[in-house]
């Protein structure tokens, strides 16, 4: 408790007890000798002021104490420090300090804590708090809106997912229909090819039989005639039967990919379609690399027949010229490049970009389904991991120059067998 020499009445005692002002007594050596209740809570176990106040602040404090003397018994100053330096979170408080010198062991210190915020600071603080609460409110609102939007987004996503699933299914279905159509289209094309291939042997059989009857009726038939005619008929029947074998082989559904020779593939293709080319005076010039490919050979045959048939359809609309189809191939960077070009003048520039689209056809009124080249692209790119494109080119063949369309197919090589 404080020395009652200085404070003598009860009211003062009470004030000393209840005030938040720190009142304490120190010696010149900065020993804490006495204090009021307010200071007591800071003091704890320490008896030296230096143990209580941070070093920077104690120096300022000590300077003032040193200045005190009997001649200079009163000093006022303002300082800000924390009375509890171990509490890192404690905010330094500004104190208005009055020190009164009585003697070296009797210095009364009165430290009046000031609100550590200035008026302006307080205003700024409150407006900040206000802002924060507004911000908080806004944030809450935003959070709510965000949640709402997230919900909507989730629903949207779910819908989208369902729609995507539906679309994918629809697409799948569409693809199946297209595959079916393409099968039918190539079937129709093949039946036409069979018809063409059968035409000649059938005509030979028919005329042989007719000739035999004629000779018989006119009495010019001899043993030799019967023998040769029967041979002719037999050979033609063989031819018919072979044709069936080629086509049956083509239509046989092979599901397993296999290795095959590109040369063989072209041979098989031409066996299927050659009649329609020969009958229309179309010359096919070919130079094909002897390489092995991997995949479904019949699908590649389908691609080649599609391209060749397209070229044929174009070539027969052009009269009075040499009708040419040139098939070339070469190896480049682990790929086989196959070029099929014709001299039918080329693909009109305005449709060049569309020819691989499904159901795109320029032959609505004849036999076009618009499936052939679409399927070809699917087979080359999806099934065989290759590439197919078309362009118009000028080229020369046997010292004559021509214009036409060129289909360029690149296919990855089956590395194991071609090394």
């Amino acid at each position, binding site marked *: 408790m404080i020395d009652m020499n200085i404070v003598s009445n009860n009211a003062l005692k009470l004030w000393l007890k209840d005030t938040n002002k720190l009142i304490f007594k120190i010696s010149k050596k900065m020993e804490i000798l006495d204090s009021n209740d307010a200071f007591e809570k800071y003091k704890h176990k320490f008896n030296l002021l230096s143990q209580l106040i941070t070093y920077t602040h104690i120096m300022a404090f000590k300077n003032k104490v040193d200045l005190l003397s009997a001649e200079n018994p009163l000093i006022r100053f303002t300082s800000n420090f924390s009375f509890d330096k171990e509490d890192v979170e404690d905010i330094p408080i500004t104190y208005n300090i009055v020190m009164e010198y009585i003697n070296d062991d009797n210095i009364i210190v009165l430290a009046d804590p000031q609100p550590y915020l200035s008026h302006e600071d307080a205003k700024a603080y409150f407006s900040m708090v206000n802002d924060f609460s507004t911000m908080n409110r806004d944030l809450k609102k935003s959070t709510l809106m965000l949640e709402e939007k997230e919900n909507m987004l989730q629903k949207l996503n779910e819908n989208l997912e369902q729609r995507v699933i539906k679309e994918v299914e629809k697409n799948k279905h569409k693809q199946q229909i297209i595959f079916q159509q393409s099968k039918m289209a190539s079937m129709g094309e093949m039946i036409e090819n069979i018809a063409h291939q059968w035409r000649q042997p059938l005509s030979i059989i028919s*005329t042989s039989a007719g*000739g035999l009857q004629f000779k018989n009726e*006119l*009495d010019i038939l001899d043993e030799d005639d019967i023998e040769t005619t029967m041979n002719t008929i037999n050979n033609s029947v063989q031819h018919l039967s072979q044709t069936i074998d080629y086509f049956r082989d083509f239509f046989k559904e092979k599901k397993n990919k296999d290795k095959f020779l590109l040369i063989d593939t072209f041979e098989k293709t031409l066996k299927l379609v050659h009649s329609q080319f020969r*009958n229309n005076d179309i010359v096919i010039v070919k130079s094909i690399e002897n390489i092995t490919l991997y995949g479904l050979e019949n699908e590649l045959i389908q691609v080649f027949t599609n391209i060749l048939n397209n070229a044929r359809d174009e070539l027969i609309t052009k009269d009075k010229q040499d009708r040419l189809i040139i098939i070339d191939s070469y190896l480049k960077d682990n790929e086989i490049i196959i070029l099929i070009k014709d001299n039918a003048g080329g693909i009109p520039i305005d449709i060049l970009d569309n020819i691989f689209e499904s159901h795109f056809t320029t032959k609505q009124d004849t036999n076009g389904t618009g499936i052939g080249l679409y399927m070809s692209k699917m087979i080359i790119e999806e099934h065989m991991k290759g590439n197919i494109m078309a362009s118009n080119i000028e080229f020369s063949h046997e010292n004559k120059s021509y214009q036409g369309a060129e289909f360029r197919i690149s296919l990855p090589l089956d590395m194991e067998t071609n090394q």
Partner: protein
Amino acid sequence: MNFLKWNNETMSIGIQSIDNQHKDLLKIINKLSLSINNNSQKKDIVPIINEFINYAEYHFSTEEELFDRFNYVESIPHKKEHALFLKKMLELKKQLDEEERYERKSAVEVAEQLFKFAISWFLNHIRGSDKEYVSLLKDNGIE
């Protein structure tokens, strides 16, 4: 394919000049038959049809001139048969040039029809209708 050979006994109508022209027809039929065996193309068939037409022109005019000169009574139906032959030739020629792809006959198909038509013409017209005017011509001193 063995060729159709001239057999005087079964093919001759007994008038040398007409027989010679009928031999020409047989030659064209043989040419056609060879073409079918070599898988006739349009470029092979068109000249053969033209040969048939050319044959028809000179042979029919030879016959028809004689009919008119000797007032052959069956002249009109016979001339009609001639006209039918020419009509058939032009028809077959047209089939090769059809615009519509599926209507267009392949060359070998046309050749086959042509062959069938030609041999049946030989059997029916030469050994039938032609024999009917022989006596009239022979009576008028045609050999």
